[in-house]
């Protein structure tokens, strides 16, 4: 008797529970690619290789910050043989020294992924200073 009602209820529940999946079907944009500056392209190698960097740059920055502030170590000899200044925004061989355009490099993915790191409340970008 109540079979139909139960089945209808179940169907409604399944549809509602799967709402996030079917709602986003086909409607999403492709993930953006960060744009490399000419300088970064010319350098060829970053601190870690591309995929490691993509996945782990936040923990690398965290490690760097502790090394610089707590231990006064500022030079990073990467496993790939290159040397870096352990700094996000100051100097030629810092992150921003190579990836000059924060909007095209950092913000592209961060905005897409709704990540809002507060690095830039304190760290400055050359663009911002010269504007």
């Amino acid at each position, binding site marked *: 008797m109540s079979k139909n009602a139960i089945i209808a209820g179940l169907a409604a529940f399944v549809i509602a529970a799967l709402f996030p999946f079917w709602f986003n079907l086909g409607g999403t944009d492709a993930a953006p690619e960060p744009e490399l500056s000419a300088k970064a392209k010319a350098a060829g190698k970053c601190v*870690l*290789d591309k995929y*490691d960097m993509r996945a782990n740059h936040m923990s690398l920055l965290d490690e*760097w*910050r502790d*090394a610089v*502030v*707590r*231990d*006064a*170590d*500022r*030079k*990073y*000899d*990467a*496993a*790939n043989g290159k040397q870096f200044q*352990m700094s996000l*925004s*100051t*100097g030629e061989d810092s992150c921003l020294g190579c990836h000059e355009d924060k909007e095209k490099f950092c913000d592209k993915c961060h905005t897409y992924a709704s990540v809002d790191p*507060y690095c830039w*409340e*304190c*760290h*400055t970008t*050359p663009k*911002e*200073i010269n*504007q």
Partner: protein
Amino acid sequence: MKKSRRSFLKAAGVSALGIGVAPAIQAVASSGSTPAALAAKTKHPEALTAHRWGMVIDTSKITDEVAENIVHACRKAHNVPDLNHEPDPEKYPKTRPVNHNQEVKWIWEEHFESAFPDKEDEFLAERFKELPFLVTCNHCKNAPCVQACPTQATFKREDGIVLMDFHRCIGCRFCMAACPFGSRSFNFRDPRPFIEEINPDFPTRSKGVVEKCNLCAERLAKGLQPACADVSEGAIVVGDLEDPNSEVRELLNEKYSIRRKQELGTEPSVYYIM
């Protein structure tokens, strides 16, 4: 299949050993090959180091002009905001009017009776009453701010510098209450609009963070003297207090010096030659 008790125990023993040893072998095998383990974090070879950094200020060499240059150089080097600076309305259109009594201080001028309240005297030499005394963070040996900080944002580095990790400061201001020298300032608002000219070599701070003198840790790491010592025309000398042959120790050996509020036992590392 039948198994004797002896062969069962043997097999059990070997497998227990295997289970115990495998993680250790794996750890040894993998530790050499990860990129993070191959990378090295070191100091630049030109970095200046010390067992305990200290500062000697020769009060006879500090004129109004020198003092002003020093304060200005420090502000510029560290993007210290000046709340009296009129913000650029184009760049920061929404800046609220400012309370001009607010200050952010790293190194600043003080009168003798404020810098050394315990040494004030009715018959003190007249010249001391007019002289500008430069005061800053004393990088105390027993720093009370370090003990007060609940997040270890303020800490004592191995070389004696009392340093702040601005990332970690939660703005509780316990350190400001603990510091007997008033060497710490709180950012009640975003300091950026009040920085005349932003120096790209040092970050600014954000709202809700305490700041203070860092003895130019970022310059020492590059092999440079602190900015104040650089422009002081010999009035400020920074060096290793634990090294008997250092310039600061020689100066302290030659002349009579005092420290601020010595009776509190914080052991300041900033000496004033009188």
